[in-house]
């Protein structure tokens, strides 16, 4: 990647719009280029400043009220004239399209932010991105230890919860360390395990209430991701390990949790 590409791609990176492999390539370029790093910092600072709510103008309540009143009142006469002219050639299409569009419009009037991606899809992408970043950016561990009694206390004071930490060396999945990470706008515990040459990241944070062990398995960018709830913790397991072995590992976590 050259500087010209990086200077455009940094924006998509900041906006979380880059695919994973380009993001990794971009980070690699950034690590070796002080000029692009300087520009990136300026742009990141700007993005942070503009997030301030004071830059966002809210519609005055009187305007909302005026439009709410104007729309239902004006629609029959305006719409009637318009539709009757068209009635001859596309009546059926309009009968379907109009209520659809009107409904959509009312949804925008009444529900300002109706379109939100599902939270779990976002978290799955974030979890995979963190996993890949932990491997690429040589920041796999903040605390390197195979001893669960070293790793667990390390989180004290760094998080407002204490994640369950177990070593599964006997079962072929030794604990190798832990680190702090950031998923879904909150700090989380990341535990690192190894199986042969494969690295497994386990992300944990307290679950919002659901205590049953709801399981989700998916594959994203070739990584296997499993989600479950263990001992009141939201638990995401990510690895390039094959599905069967990851299942086995997830089973160990569930059994010990």
């Amino acid at each position: 990647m050259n500087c010209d590409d990086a200077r455009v791609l940094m924006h998509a990176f900041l906006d979380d719009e880059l695919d994973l492999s380009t993001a990794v390539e971009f980070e690699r370029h950034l690590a070796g280029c002080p000029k692009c790093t300087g520009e990136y910092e300026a742009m990141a600072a700007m993005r942070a400043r503009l997030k301030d709510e004071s830059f966002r103008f809210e519609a005055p309540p009187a305007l909302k009220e005026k439009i709410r009143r104007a729309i239902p009142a004006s629609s029959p006469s305006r719409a009637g004239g318009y539709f009757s002219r068209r009635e001859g050639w596309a009546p059926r299409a309009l009968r379907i399209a109009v209520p659809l569009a009107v409904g959509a419009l009312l949804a925008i009037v009444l529900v300002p932010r109706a379109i939100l991606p599902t939270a779990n899809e976002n978290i799955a992408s974030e979890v995979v991105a963190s996993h890949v970043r932990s491997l690429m950016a040589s920041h796999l561990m903040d605390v390197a230890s195979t001893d669960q009694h070293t790793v667990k206390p390390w989180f004290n004071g760094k998080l407002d919860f204490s994640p369950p930490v177990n070593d599964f060396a006997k079962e072929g999945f030794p604990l190798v360390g832990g680190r702090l990470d950031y998923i879904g706008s909150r700090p989380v515990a990341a535990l690192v395990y190894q199986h042969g040459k494969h690295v497994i990241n386990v992300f944990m944070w307290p679950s919002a209430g659901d205590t049953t062990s709801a399981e989700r398995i998916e594959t994203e960018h070739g990584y296997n991701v499993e989600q479950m709830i263990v001992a009141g913790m939201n638990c995401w397991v990510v690895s390039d390990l094959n599905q069967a072995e990851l299942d086995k590992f997830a089973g160990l976590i569930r059994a010990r949790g």
Partner: protein
Amino acid sequence: MDAAYNLARWLVRDDHDAQDVVQEAYLRAFRFAPGFRGGDPRAWILAIVRNTAFSWLRRNRGADPPTEFDEQVHGGSTEEHSMEADAVRKADAATIREALEQLPDDFREIIVMRDIEDLSYKEIASTIDVPIGTVMSRLARARGKLARSLKERIAKER
């Protein structure tokens, strides 16, 4: 409706005019409701707000001078970038608002949609009807220009 008003307010830069634009846009949207062929309703209404705002601007203020091309993605030294970062952090809200208001229309709207309104590239692309790659490159030029403008403003203040 806040998104519609926010975009209109930044485009026409006046509360009263922005209210007129939003009201006109919603009535138009309602009248042309059959033109809505599915897709993202928010992008659809914002596209109408945007068209209404631009025709309002042409009618009342004459067209903006065309965007100069000096803000093609061009380098800038490491020192310049660190001065920009510095200016961005130090500038008060009023200075940022003023700098943003004085950007060319197509730069201002894309920053408003992305950074203030938090629309995705896809939503922006469908609102202003350009490919996603254009959204990214225009955003790069717009943010670069805003950073340089802030740097100059802060330098003048001293």
